[in-house]
């Protein structure tokens, strides 16, 4: 049983609150959010106590701080929580700059508390299975990857912070970082990044817009193509999807969100046509991820995604941004 303070009552705050309750009904939750109505919604739904950040830092009973705020706030909140002796779980991306991420990792080392970053894709079964299959060698050594992750623009951010690249880092740092992290884990260190992106302000498209393409060469010689998109029109029936293709020396593994659906629903209620597709499961990757974090605290083991790993994945995303800015290939060694 733990006492957990969730910072940020947005989309991820809700997902984490539900997960902590699923792990153990007896977990006590605190919710911190400047927007009273959002904090209250989580309080009502999951029995969380509304509090301020100062209050939870001062409470000796609170052992875990879980950061679900916009990215640009991560550093300050994480460092202060670690300094107050809390274990910290931080949503991805760890930060917007390497120096911020280093400060967080350093604070964790100094405090001796656990610090884990939410690269949840590693816990998604269709991705975890790729790691297992690669290890089993059915398709030989994986030498090439194509991954897509995208959908419509995330307009749910408070104050539309995703649209501000100074706050979100754009599509590479906020979204494709999932794939950069997964590919790094699968294929090892990245050597060269060639990337381009188109980020359009709301003047040109309502709700903003961002589309990125990156070509990676790994130290091993493996190649990867990463497409990240916040460019699909808003309000589509299927507003998010992923695709992957991993080519090995003896075969390939591929999957697409268009295929992985167990329910397709079409309704016309009061003359309003609606389509949805779903693949519901009892297994929840977010619960699995947080369970892994809690176990590492209880058994005093290394967390599954530590600060150093998060820094390495952030470096790749920043290298993509740098390449897109300079319009030339960037060596990962240029980003430090």
């Amino acid at each position, binding site marked *: 049983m733990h006492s957990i303070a969730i910072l940020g009552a947005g989309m991820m705050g809700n997902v984490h609150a539900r997960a902590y309750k699923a792990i153990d009904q007896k977990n006590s939750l605190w919710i911190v959010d400047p927007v009273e109505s959002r904090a209250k919604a989580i309080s009502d739904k999951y029995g969380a106590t509304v509090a301020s950040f100062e209050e939870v830092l001062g409470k000796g009973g609170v052992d875990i701080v879980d950061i679900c705020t916009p990215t640009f706030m991560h550093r300050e909140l994480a460092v202060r929580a670690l300094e107050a002796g809390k274990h910290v779980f931080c949503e991805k991306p760890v930060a917007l700059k390497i120096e911020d991420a280093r400060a967080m990792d350093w604070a964790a080392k100094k405090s001796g508390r656990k610090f884990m970053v939410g690269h949840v894709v590693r816990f998604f079964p269709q991705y975890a299975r790729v790691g297992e299959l690669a290890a089993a060698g059915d398709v030989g050594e994986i030498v*090439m990857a194509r991954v897509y992750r995208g959908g419509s623009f995330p307009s749910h951010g408070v104050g539309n912070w995703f649209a501000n690249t100074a706050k979100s880092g754009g599509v590479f740092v906020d979204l494709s970082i999932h794939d950069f992290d997964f590919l790094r884990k699968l294929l090892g260190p990245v050597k*060269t990044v060639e990337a*381009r992106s188109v980020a*359009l302000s709301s003047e040109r498209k309502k709700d903003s817009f961002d589309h990125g*393409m990156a070509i990676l060469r790994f130290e091993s010689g493996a190649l990867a193509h990463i497409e990240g998109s916040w460019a699909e*029109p808003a309000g589509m029936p299927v507003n998010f999807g992923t695709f992957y293709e991993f080519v090995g020396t003896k075969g390939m593994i591929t999957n697409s969100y268009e295929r992985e659906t167990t329910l397709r629903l079409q309704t016309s209620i009061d003359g309003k046509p609606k389509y949805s597709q779903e693949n519901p499961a009892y297994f929840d990757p977010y619960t699995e991820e947080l369970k892994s974090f809690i176990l590492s605290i209880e058994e005093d083991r290394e967390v599954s995604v530590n600060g150093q790993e998060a820094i390495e994945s952030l470096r790749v995303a920043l290298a993509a941004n740098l390449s897109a800015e300079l319009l030339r290939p960037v060596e990962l060694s240029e980003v430090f």
Partner: protein
Amino acid sequence: MTKIAILGIAHMHGYSYARALKGMNDIEIAGLYDEDRSRMNRACEDLGIKPCEHPEELVAGSDGVIVTSENSTHRKFVEIAAGAGKHVLCEKPIATTVEDAEAMIEVCRRNNVKLQMAFPVRYSASVRKAREIVSGGLLGEVVSLVGTNHGRMPGGWFIDPVLGGGGAVMDHTVHVVDIVRWLLNCEFTQVYATYGTMIHDIPVEDCGLEMFKLSTGQYMTLDCSWSRPKAHPYWGDVTLHIVGTEGTLFLDVFNSKIEVYSNEKGGRWDNYGDNLDSLMIEEFLKVLREGKEPFTDGNDGLQSLKAVTAAYKSFREGKVVEI
């Protein structure tokens, strides 16, 4: 009766073109010439075509010529056809060097001969529809493109650095470059490429990724890899994700498929879509019979080859290069 000569049967597309011709009215395949006599005789037997020892004689007795020899020998055969004043349909890529491609265009021009390039993908109804969607403004302003032309490793002369002129980059860059040039009415201006021999033990690259800049301002990536394993149910793909300010379009040219599961032959995808080779050959017959300008011509072949040779240069130099 329109008589067609086939020069070179090194490329498997030659078989497909010959079969397409045999299904058409008022067509006679005058004969087949190939420098490799055993390959010539085998193909002639398979296809029921007359083998010919002398390409010049064969061309002289024909109305039009199809060249499906190895990439590096296209020039020689196109020159024979042009010298005899016969219109030519030439397999892609046009040649292995820009110099050869320019010489081929020039010899055709000098002899008043039309040079059609075998870019069958551009003849697809889906590609035409995509062009209507883009030019009709349904996507708003197109801002980026992501393309693929995957295939299986073809083996044979395709992996001979001299005869093929390269590997996957040479073989699988030009189709998507050609359709994008047509879709957006643009040229390719810059490229960064990275590639390698990743899967097979062969003397040329089998996987490659390219980042292009277009004259209309957009960037486009292309995956030109021979990365479909033997176990894959289909030979490969040509796809293009077009991202616009108001919408997106995903083009998957060969996705008209049924899935076939055979206890004896395993699983495979069977394409039931329009036969693009036939559509392209019908266009060639219009060039021969009606004097129509080719829909895909020598310049299209040259421009797409320039993108390829620049891609190789980019990898050698490790930087973005001008096309």
